[in-house]
């Protein structure tokens, strides 16, 4: 980066800072909202699970009871009971196997009739020794005849537990199978704890579900990896498993809760906090984004307005200062904008500074002008005949300039230029300047050098530069026969023409050593005579017009006008 790089605009800077601040603020708010949404979701998920657990436990208990009652009612089949009881009476040790088979087939038929009226995975009928007599239902093949049914977690004769058969775990609800108050067998309603059951459970609990038996996830709606992770997490927990908690599965935080504990089987409901909070967070962020967008726009607009409030007055100020610096005009100072106290103070300070600088400059110029005027007057005073000449020429020139409707600036240039027009005569020796007799050509050449000498003197003072043409060219003539350059007509500035006319008039109307003063009218006639050749015609005309206003009754030029 180069050292000469321009600094950025205040407006850009303000907008950048505002934008950055708003961005940091919004990021902070986003982070906070995300965290708080997550926290709230975690709580609500836990609350939901808890409520769900109560409802589920009630529903599940009722469902199992009703299922049991349904089966119990269906079990009140006289034929089934008669078959089982008669079979028990006749299937002694020495019974005919063929007859026994016939009996078991009869029982199986009767059980099928019962099972056909209920939606169950398996209905299993055992004798009093827990041996399977018959089974019916979708998964009946898993309950072969004569196998002993072992129900895990059976307490006394109340059975509501689980049984594991060939890798399939069944939820078991038992119903008594009595005949006239005497137990003749048992009916087990077996519901497979498979994926279908887990799905039903999930729909009921409104969450993911997992069924754990003996520390193993029997079935679940989770992915296999998550199920394994859940299994190992439970294994690490104290015996019996926690009732509820938070667990990380698949890099996602899950809240889980034990729904019911059916002896060796535990039913869990799980809800992913992350996926629940994602939706909630998305909604919150969407709303927040809307607000944030509005806030950002508002902040940018406000900062833009503020920045403009500063930059605009400063811009105005700097524009007027530039203009002032160019024109050196202290009259048109910028007025305080009223936009802010600081800017107004700055404006005032600048105004005061410019005013004082202008005053100092005026003072300096005044001093210079005064000194030069004094010099010009001193020069005039070298010759008693020309005393007051420069001031009179100045008064006359200003009057002519006004008559010709020149601009005020040009009038001012003429006023001082006319005063200084003969400054170059400082280099003319008294012998030539004060010589009462006619000049020799060599002496006249010396006189001819005074405009150029005057110009050179003024060149050393910068603020007198505008007056140089008047000093240098006040002896040129429209017909080109003047000196020092012999310029013609329009090549000569009007200011120089005017001073030439005024100079000539004053020379003619004042006395010289070698002649007396002419009457103003005679002098005007003389000027009229040479108008267009030696003198600028319009300037002569203007002099004729203004003369009555600037000379007294005695024909003298009134000098009070000098200080008007």
């Amino acid at each position, binding site marked *: 980066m180069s050292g000469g790089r321009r600094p950025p605009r205040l407006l850009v800077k303000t907008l950048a800072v505002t934008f950055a601040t708003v961005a940091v603020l919004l990021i902070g708010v986003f982070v906070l909202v995300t965290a708080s949404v997550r926290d709230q979701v975690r709580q609500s998920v836990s609350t939901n699970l808890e409520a769900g657990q109560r409802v589920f436990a009630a529903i599940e*208990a009722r469902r*199992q*009871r009703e299922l*049991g*009652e349904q089966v*119990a009612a269906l079990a*009140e*089949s*006289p*034929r089934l*009971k*008669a*078959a089982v*009881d*008669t079979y028990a*009476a*006749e299937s*002694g040790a020495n019974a005919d196997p063929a*007859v026994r088979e016939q009996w078991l087939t*009869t029982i199986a038929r009767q059980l099928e009739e019962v099972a056909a009226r209920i939606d169950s995975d398996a209905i299993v009928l055992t004798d*009093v*020794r*827990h041996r399977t007599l018959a089974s019916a239902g979708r998964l009946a093949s898993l309950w072969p005849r004569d196998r002993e049914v072992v*129900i895990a977690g*059976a307490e*006394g*004769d*109340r*059975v*509501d537990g689980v049984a594991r058969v060939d890798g399939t775990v069944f939820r078991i*609800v*038992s*119903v*008594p199978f*009595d*005949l*006239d*108050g*005497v*137990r003749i*067998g*048992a009916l*087990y309603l077996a519901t497979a704890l498979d994926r279908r059951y887990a799905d039903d459970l999930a729909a009921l609990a409104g969450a993911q579900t997992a069924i754990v038996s003996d520390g193993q996830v029997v079935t679940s709606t989770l992915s296999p990896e998550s199920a394994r992770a859940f299994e190992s997490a439970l294994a690490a927990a104290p015996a019996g498993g926690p009732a509820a908690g938070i667990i990380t599965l698949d890099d996602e935080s899950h809240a889980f809760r034990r729904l019911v504990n059916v002896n060796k089987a535990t039913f869990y409901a799980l809800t992913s906090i992350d996926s629940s909070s994602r939706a909630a967070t998305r909604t919150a962020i969407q709303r927040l984004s809307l607000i944030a967008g509005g806030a950002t726009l508002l902040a940018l607009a406000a900062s833009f307005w503020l920045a403009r409030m500063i930059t605009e007055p400063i811009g105005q100020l700097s524009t007027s200062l530039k203009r002032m610096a160019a024109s050196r005009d202290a009259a048109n100072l910028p007025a305080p904008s009223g936009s802010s106290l600081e800017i107004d103070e700055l404006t005032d300070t600048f105004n005061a500074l410019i005013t004082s600088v202008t005053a100092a400059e005026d003072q300096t110029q005044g001093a210079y002008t005064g000194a030069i005027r004094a010099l010009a007057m001193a020069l005039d005073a070298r010759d008693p005949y020309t005393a007051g000449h420069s001031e009179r020429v100045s008064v006359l020139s200003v009057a002519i300039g006004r008559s010709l409707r020149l601009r005020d600036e040009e009038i001012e240039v003429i006023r001082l230029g006319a005063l200084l027009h003969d400054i170059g005569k400082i280099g003319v020796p008294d012998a030539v300047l004060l010589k009462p007799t006619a000049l020799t050509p060599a002496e006249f050449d010396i006189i001819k050098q005074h405009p150029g000498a005057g110009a050179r003197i003024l060149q050393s003072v910068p603020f007198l530069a505008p007056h140089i043409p008047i000093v240098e060219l006040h002896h040129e003539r429209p017909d080109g026969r003047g000196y020092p350059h012999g310029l013609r007509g329009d090549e000569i500035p009007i200011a120089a023409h005017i001073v030439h006319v005024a100079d000539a008039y004053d020379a003619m109307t004042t006395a010289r050593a070698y002649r007396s003063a002419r009457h103003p009218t005679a002098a005007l006639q003389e000027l009229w005579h040479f108008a267009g050749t030696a003198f600028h015609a319009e300037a002569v005309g203007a002099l004729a017009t203004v003369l009555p206003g600037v000379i007294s009754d005695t024909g003298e030029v009134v000098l009070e006008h000098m200080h008007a």
Partner: protein
Amino acid sequence: MCLAAATAGPRAQTADGTAPGVGTISGRVKLTARVRSPLPSNVYPSRTIGKHAAPAIPEIRNVVVYLKDPGFRGALRTTKSELRQEDETFIPHVLAITRGSTVEFPNGDPFFHNVFSLSSTATFNLGRYPRGETRGQRFNKPGLVKVFCDIHSHMSASILVLDHPYFAIPATDGAFELPNIPAGRYTLVGWHERVGERTLSVRVDAGQVSTVNLTVPVEDQP
């Protein structure tokens, strides 16, 4: 065997009514509580519908004491017994009869009953009939007949058909007596439907009373 018994004819009887060369088995049956493997009952209490007030029949009355294969040769006296249906219960619950006897099943309840059996000894179905009506069934084969009502699933009864007269159902105190048994060695059976046969060796001497005590391990349920 029946024909053989018939040709043998009844033995001569003594003046006091006891045949010569016969003795009596007298004894007492005792029911003992047995440890039963637990069987499931409903975890959830069920809503019981119309629980019938079963008349209390002492469990001892459901025991039959008889001789196992005594080799009876003689005319078997048939009887006409009654198995009433009252309060949705068969009364008595256990009936012992001789082969060829008839059992009547009168309906004493103000609603229909049915009587049927799936037993191989006698498979029958008497159909449904109202109060006051009765239907009978003759049992020609020895063995156990389980009787049910296909309207009331909790109703059941057992009929033990024997091809000899040496059987008895004990009194409520358990006492029983089997008279007129020819002298010899026999196997005495105490039968209960949920236990099966409990046997005891017994010797019968002519003119003597053999006293035995039989234990049947049945839970004496109320």
